[in-house]
């Protein structure tokens, strides 16, 4: 099994975005009093994430960002990493444990980690990343003024939803109805699904926003899919809905659109292989983005100019107009971390993306410090990637036929017991069915 060795290769959006979080962290940690304290003991940063192993891309990005700030792990800062393996009910316990351990700051990945942490403490500063819609998730009062002891980065899930829908429609013109299935406790995805429903008419689509709580509900919802339907994956990993939708999309050719979170969550590394290295993409730098360059001062004015060029309203495709930056350009502390969305003409983007649908860059954030238009194209590349997943089914062998002798097999039963076909035969006929566990057995 080939694994992705580079922590960033799964998900390029995160490291760039996380650098801002780390800078925020630096800001939080920089008062003189804290400096005095720092001499005596390293900062203790608590990390809570929903991944399946300790080192997920967000954590790798955090570490890289800290290093770029000159904070060495062990000497200046220690990380206390807790992870919940996608289980929602474990997050409150883990959050309480982190608070109790007296960390100086908590870094929470996704809404499912950030909300329990917010409930657990009103005093310890919290920085979140990969939250689909922090306002809808009740994490912050507003983007420009988050308030309380919490700040972080929005993945702009709600804001990008119209564009995602548009891309789904452009890529699969036959799609008439789109299912936005999400976990009832995943507030960001809920907000995104409702946004999708609100803008559906513009794209002549019908959007069914459906909340589920159990795997059975999810499967029974998916069973009602019919020809001409598409799927909009939720942002959160609760119930592994994105994984189930991905499996379904690959097996049954349902068009489906995903968030990059899926690629970077460490949940299903195989998906990473759907992102070929981007070569021959016009105007792209060939080297990987250096996370330290992301928020480099000095080029801010130039960047603003390029942003403006990229944001020309006349370039926006119709539903894309919904995506004009809604955050004020200056103002409260939230402005520092609020990513801005690039609005761009679809026609120039699609051609670019056919050649290079792997974006190493960040969706909608300005952190890359690159050319605005280029960033926009790659934004589309990143978004389109999900749509392309639906094309990926190939090479299906024919099943064995009636009258053939069944090939023998040795398989593993729960408890690591080996079972042979020969053991099952002899007593009577054998009924064998094959299944994927997420879709239920019978």
């Amino acid at each position, binding site marked *: *099994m*080939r694994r992705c060795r580079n922590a960033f290769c799964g998900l390029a959006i995160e490291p760039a975005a996380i650098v801002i979080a780390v800078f925020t962290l630096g800001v939080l940690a920089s008062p003189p009093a804290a400096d005095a304290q720092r001499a005596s003991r390293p900062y203790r940063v608590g990390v809570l994430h929903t991944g399946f192993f300790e080192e997920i891309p967000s954590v790798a990005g955090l570490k890289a960002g800290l290093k770029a700030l000159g904070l060495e792990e062990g000497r200046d800062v220690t990380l206390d990493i807790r992870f919940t393996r996608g289980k929602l009910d474990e997050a409150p316990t883990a959050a309480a444990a982190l608070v109790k351990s007296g960390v100086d700051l908590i870094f929470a990945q996704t809404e499912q980690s950030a909300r329990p942490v917010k409930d657990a403490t009103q005093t310890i500063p919290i920085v979140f990343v990969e939250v689909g819609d922090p306002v809808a998730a009740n994490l912050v009062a507003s983007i420009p003024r988050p308030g309380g002891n919490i700040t972080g980065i929005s993945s702009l899930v709600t804001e990008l939803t119209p564009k995602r829908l548009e891309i789904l429609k452009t890529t699969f013109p036959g799609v008439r109805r789109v299912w936005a299935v999400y976990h009832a406790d995943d507030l960001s995805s809920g907000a995104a699904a409702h946004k999708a429903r609100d803008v559906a008419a513009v794209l002549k689509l019908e959007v069914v926003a459906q909340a589920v709580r159990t795997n059975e509900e999810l*499967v029974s919802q*998916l*069973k009602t*899919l019919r020809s001409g339907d598409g799927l909009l994956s939720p942002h959160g990993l609760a119930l592994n809905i994105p994984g189930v939708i991905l*499996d*379904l999309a*690959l*097996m*049954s050719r349902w068009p489906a659109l995903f968030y990059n979170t899926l690629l970077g969550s460490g949940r299903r*590394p*195989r*998906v990473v*292989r*759907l992102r070929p290295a981007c070569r021959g993409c016009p105007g792209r730098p060939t080297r990987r983005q250096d996370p330290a360059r992301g928020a480099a001062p000095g080029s801010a004015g130039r960047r603003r100019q390029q942003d403006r060029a990229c944001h020309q309203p006349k370039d926006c495709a119709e539903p894309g107009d919904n995506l004009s930056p809604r955050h004020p350009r200056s103002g409260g502390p939230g402005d520092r971390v609020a990513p801005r969305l690039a609005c761009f003409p679809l026609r120039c983007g699609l051609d670019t993306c056919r050649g290079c649908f792997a974006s190493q860059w960040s969706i909608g954030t300005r952190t890359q410090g690159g050319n605005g238009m280029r960033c926009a194209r790659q934004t589309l590349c990143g978004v389109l990637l999900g749509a392309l997943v639906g094309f*990926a*089914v*190939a*090479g*299906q*062998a*024919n*099943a*064995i*036929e*009636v*009258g*053939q*002798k*069944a*090939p*023998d*097999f*040795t*398989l*593993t*039963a*729960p*408890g*690591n017991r080996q*079972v042979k076909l*020969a053991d*099952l*035969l002899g*007593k*009577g*006929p*054998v*009924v*064998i*069915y*094959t*299944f*994927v*566990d997420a*879709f*239920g*057995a*019978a």
Partner: protein
Amino acid sequence: MSQFEAANAHVVGVSADPVAKLDDFTKKNTIKHQILSDFGRKMLPAYGVMVTDQKSPMYRLAKRAYFILDRHGIVRFVRVQASPLDLLKTEEVLKALKGLGT
């Protein structure tokens, strides 16, 4: 399930998911019959019921399919579903089983 026992048939579910995952799955859904893991992907391709993907060689999952073998190991019934969500009705499988006359 008791109907299958009455027909003296052995029911086996095979999935490409790892054993531990299936173990959880069996307990959670209180499944009585035998569930087997083909994590090594040996049985599924031999029976031609594996979904593969050229772009992503790691993507190899079981299709939803039903086989009935007689006591000598000869295939008597094959049904491969187009969607992994399409379950075959128990009655249909039973009917096919009875049709064997074994």
